[in-house]
Each structure stands twice: as structure tokens, then as C-alpha cells.
């Protein structure tokens, strides 16, 4: 019996001794250079990849030391990762939370360690304590995009059947985009009638099965809004197998609309298949986030919400606004 107890004591004693003896973070700190932690929920879509790249550029400009962690959709792991960032004494955190509620304890922990925290692209629920949010106004961008789509639909002169691919209902942005879509559709009952609402939970396979069956159930769908461009590949292959993926000027072209403004959308726009796409100005948002962090670090006050108006790109303003669209720079995938 004694041998086993002795070994446990040995192991734990060694662990604690090392722990107490060494409290100072090992990496020395070049004065003025900040260590910034970036906590992303997922890199599943091109939008997130582009955001991460832009954040890195902004931080490299200020030669900050970057610590990146990705939670791959697990809120509990993200909480553990944020706590480990805090214990590594970072000077600021850019957080892309899985959803508006699970980030509340993270924000509270950051505030307790008085580390400035900026939420990127997704806001937090009420009562989370002081933090800054850089977020695109999903509702207004969606309203602008869908009204552009309605304009195109109105030229058909008949009522079109519409379908919407909804994102993960736990994600504030997905809900705001759905509400934006519903508001515009409600305002133009004569032009558009929603016949299919397809929940995708940001999962490609569910999107593909949903849209294929929806086209199967009512083949006369001619108006599809995608809550995120990353779902477009599934929509394209579904339309192709029903051979209804037709250019804009074709009489029975299916009116398509998206959100994010990634490279796929840019490609579709250029080839003339996509009618309108709500774009989140990634460079602008990243710059805002990093500036906010540095200001807070210097003790200046920053207002709580930094909105990104974003803009709608469509066949009309394609040539003029193309460069402002981040999807055009990045290319489909390196």
C-alpha cells in the first residue's frame, strides 16, 4: 500500500513545487510591445479566415506578439482557452464568441483581470460587463441586400416563390439576418412569397440536403437568400443538378442573394450568376478592433459598439466597388 501513496505524493509535490517557484511569465516582455490574444470560435468559413489574416496584419503593423487559439465550435473549450490567455498575462483579447451568451463569463473573467477585450463580429448578451463590440449591422445590410434582390424580382412582374437558408439559431447574426430578410419580404408581399425555410446550423451537408429537397418539393422556387456565402457551393450544386443554375440575364434565372462577400460570391458576381451580396468590410472591422484595444490599453475610453455599415454589391456597382470587397483580394483558397 505504502508504495502507491508515496508515488502520488511525489508526483503532486513536484508539480506544485515547480508551480509556486515560478510565477513570472517566462517570455520577457519588450517594453511597449503588447501581447494580444486572438480567440476564434471556428475557421470553418472563408470569412473567418480572412478576418484572422487581417487581424494578424493589423497587429504585425504594431509588431505585437500574437497568441492564437481556435475552439472549433466548443464553447467550453473557448472558455478554457480564454482563461489560459488571461493566465498568460496577455495585454488584450480579440474574441469571436460561439454565441452571445457563452461569452459572458469570458468577458467577466477578462474584466476581473482588467485585460481589455474586444468582441469581433458577434455581440454579447446583456449584463456582460464593460467590453467593446465591433460588429456589422447584419439586419440593415441584409435589408439592403434583399431589397436589391426584390428590385431584380420585380422586373419579372410576377410573384416569385422564395427560400431562405438560415444559419445556426444560437448565433445572433444568423437571427438578425433572418429577421432582416423577413422584414423586406413582408414589405413586398406582391413580389415574393416564402415557401421554404431551411435551417443549416452552418453545416454544409444539412444545407445541401435541405435545399435539394426544397427544390424537389416546390420546383418553382426562383428566389434564394443564403445567410452566408459559405453555403453557396451546396446551393450551386443543388441548382446544377436541377439544371437551374442560370446567369442573371436568363429569363428563368433564380434570383440569388448572399452575405459576407467572400471569394465564391465574388466569383459568382463576376460570372453573372449572383444578383446581390451583403459585404462586411473586414479590413475596416479589424482595424477598428485593434485600434480599440490599443486605446483601451492606453487608458482612453472607447464607445461600446463600433458599427460597420458594410455595403451591398450587385451587378450594377460591381466594377466600381469590387476592390472594397475583401473576397476579391483573397482568391478562393491559397
Amino acid at each position, binding site marked *: 500500500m505504502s508504495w502507491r501513496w508515496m508515488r502520488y505524493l511525489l508526483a503532486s509535490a513536484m508539480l506544485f513545487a515547480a508551480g509556486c517557484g515560478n510565477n513570472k511569465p517566462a517570455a520577457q516582455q519588450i517594453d511597449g510591445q503588447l501581447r494580444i490574444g486572438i480567440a476564434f470560435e471556428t475557421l470553418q468559413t472563408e470569412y473567418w479566415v480572412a478576418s484572422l489574416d487581417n487581424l494578424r496584419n493589423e497587429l504585425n503593423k504594431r509588431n505585437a506578439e500574437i497568441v492564437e487559439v481556435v475552439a472549433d465550435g466548443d464553447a467550453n473549450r473557448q472558455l478554457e482557452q480564454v482563461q489560459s490567455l488571461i493566465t498568460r498575462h496577455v495585454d488584450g483579447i480579440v474574441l469571436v464568441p460561439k454565441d452571445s451568451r457563452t461569452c459572458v463569463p469570458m468577458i467577466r473573467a477578462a474584466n476581473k483581470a482588467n485585460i481589455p477585450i474586444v468582441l469581433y463580429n458577434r455581440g454579447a448578451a446583456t449584463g456582460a460587463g464593460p467590453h467593446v463590440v465591433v460588429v456589422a449591422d447584419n439586419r440593415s445590410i441584409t435589408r439592403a441586400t434583399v431589397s436589391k434582390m426584390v428590385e431584380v424580382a420585380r422586373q419579372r412582374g410576377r410573384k416569385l416563390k422564395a427560400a431562405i437558408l438560415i444559419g445556426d439559431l444560437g448565433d445572433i447574426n444568423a437571427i438578425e439576418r433572418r429577421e432582416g430578410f423577413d422584414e423586406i419580404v413582408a414589405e413586398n408581399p406582391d413580389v415574393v412569397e416564402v415557401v421554404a425555410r431551411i435551417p443549416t446550423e452552418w453545416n454544409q451537408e444539412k444545407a445541401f440536403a435541405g435545399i435539394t*429537397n426544397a427544390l424537389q418539393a416546390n420546383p418553382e422556387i426562383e428566389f434564394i437568400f443564403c445567410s452566408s456565402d459559405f453555403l453557396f*457551393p451546396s446551393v450551386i450544386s443543388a441548382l446544377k443538378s436541377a439544371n437551374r443554375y442560370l446567369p442573371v440575364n436568363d429569363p428563368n434565372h433564380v434570383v440569388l442573394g448572399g452575405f459576407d462577400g467572400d471569394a465564391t460570391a465574388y466569383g459568382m458576381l463576376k460570372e453573372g450568376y449572383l444578383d446581390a451580396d451583403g459585404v462586411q468590410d473586414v479590413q475596416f472591422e479589424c482595424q477598428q478592433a485593434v485600434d480599440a484595444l490599443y486605446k483601451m490599453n492606453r487608458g482612453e475610453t472607447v464607445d461600446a459598439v463600433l458599427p460597420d455599415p458594410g455595403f451591398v454589391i450587385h451587378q450594377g456597382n460591381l466594377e466600381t466597388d469590387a476592390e472594397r470587397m475583401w473576397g476579391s483580394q483573397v482568391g478562393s483558397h491559397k
Partner: protein
Amino acid sequence: MTRKLVAQLPFIVLLVVAFTFSLLTPKFATTANAANLLTQASSAAVLAGGMSFVLLASCIDLSVGSQMFFAAAVAGKLLLAYESVPLAIVAMPLVGVCCGAVHGLLVTWAGLAPFIATMASLFVLRGAGLWLTETRAMNLPAEFTGYADATVAGFPLPIVIACVTLLALTYLHRRTAFGRQIVAIGHDREEAYKAGINCSRTIWQVYLVSGVCCAIAGFISLTQLGTVSPSFGRDREFNAIAAAVLGGTSLSGGTGSILPGAAIGAILVTMVFNGLNLIDANPYTYPLITGTVILFAILCDAVRHRHFATR
């Protein structure tokens, strides 16, 4: 007489489910929906066929979903790096064979329980796939995704691939010594050893077959989806087991069939979702229904097994 009835049970259940759905919604019983259903069911059928093979030898392979994902990740990387579609198409079965070989070694040489080995490799292969794709969705070029809509002699390519694979599996099962020895091993591994069968080598080959089936199913799904997303192939193993068991393959090995059985099982599982979708059932009930279908499959296998104890 009851033995015949039970043998035909999968087919009867299929007809009953088809009938109820066609009552519920006229859109169901159309030829277009039938074609759409079969195309969707093709990748599930190939997986169910591979799973039946493994179940016949009274083993299990929980990592089929992750094998699909890993193979798809490798193909995606090759496609984007070398832009050559044939290379990617050839690479997938190779990856399947390698995964199958490793699983076979774990179960035979290392002596691990099949479900522990394949459950652990479920996560390892998912991790490996994520490593390859760095959890980023990879959009595949048009020539690759074109295969989804290609047709061979009028039939959609996925259905043709599925039929060819299932025919080959049935031939292996019924017409070759390898197939007959698997049935013997599935019945009783000790007795098969005494009868002079090299059990380890045969079971190792079974996992190779399962690996290849995963690669083929991965190819079919990949062409349909057009992109390698991090959640590709997730939870496909549950549907495969349900399809195989609903098709009449027993969980304790030795009995079961690939062509009529697994195919019917796969179509049945896919039909349930296709039908639900058409009647606009609340989409959040799908995982609940999958679980119930699997439980129903396990229960009817237990009843069938105990009622017709083959010994």
C-alpha cells in the same frame, strides 16, 4: 414460415414507410423524388454495404465517418495543390485502404476490442483531417463536382457507383472463399480457427474492404457537396449501422446480406429524412428520429437473433 417472413421484414418495412409518406404528401411518390432519393441514398448504401461486411465478421467500424473525412481532406489537398482530378480520385481509395489496414492491425495484431479501436480512431482520423484542412472549408473545382451530375447510360453516376460497389461486395460475400470464411468467423471465431481458417488475416482484409467502401462513399458525397467542410462525414457511422441492421445483418455476426439487405436499409434511412423534409417536419426532430430508428433496428435485431438462434 415465420423465418421467411422475418427474412423479408426489411422490404416490408420499406414499403410501409414509402406508403405512409406518399399518403402524407403527393410530392413524395414522384419519379423525380425517387431519383433524388436514390442519389442521396447512394453514398449511404455504399457505407451500409461496408458496415454489413464488418458486422458479418462480428466486428464493428465506428470510424467510417472520419475515414470519409480524412480521405476527402487528402483528395481536397491534392486537388488544390496539383489541380489534377484523376490523382485525387485515385488517392481516395488508397487512403481508405491504409486506414482499413491500420484498423485491421489494431484489432488482430494488437488484440484491441473492435469498437474501442475504431472509436479511438474516429477521433484520431477526424483530428488528422482537420490538420490537413486546418479546419477551413475547401471549395473544390468544378470538374470534380461535375461528377455528381454526370450520367452513365442515363443513370446518375452516384447510383451507378453504388450499384457496382454493392454488386462487388455481394460477389465477395456469396461467391468467394473469403466471403464464406467471414460468415464462419462471424458465427464463432474459435470454431472457425479450429476449422483451419486464418482468422487474423481474414478480419484484417475485412477492415480493408470497409476502408475502401468509406473512400467510395466519401467520393460520392464529396462530389455532391462540392466542398470539404470540417463537419464532413460526421455521425455517418450511426446511419450506416442502422441501415445495415435494418437490412437484416445481425449485430452478433454470421447472418446478413449486402445487396438486398444493406441497400434496402440505406434507402429506408434516407427515405425517412427525405420524407420528413418533404412534409416540412420540424427539422430539429431529425437527430431524435435518427436515434429512434437506430434503437428500433437494434431491438428488432435482438429479437430476431434470440428468436432464430442459429445454433
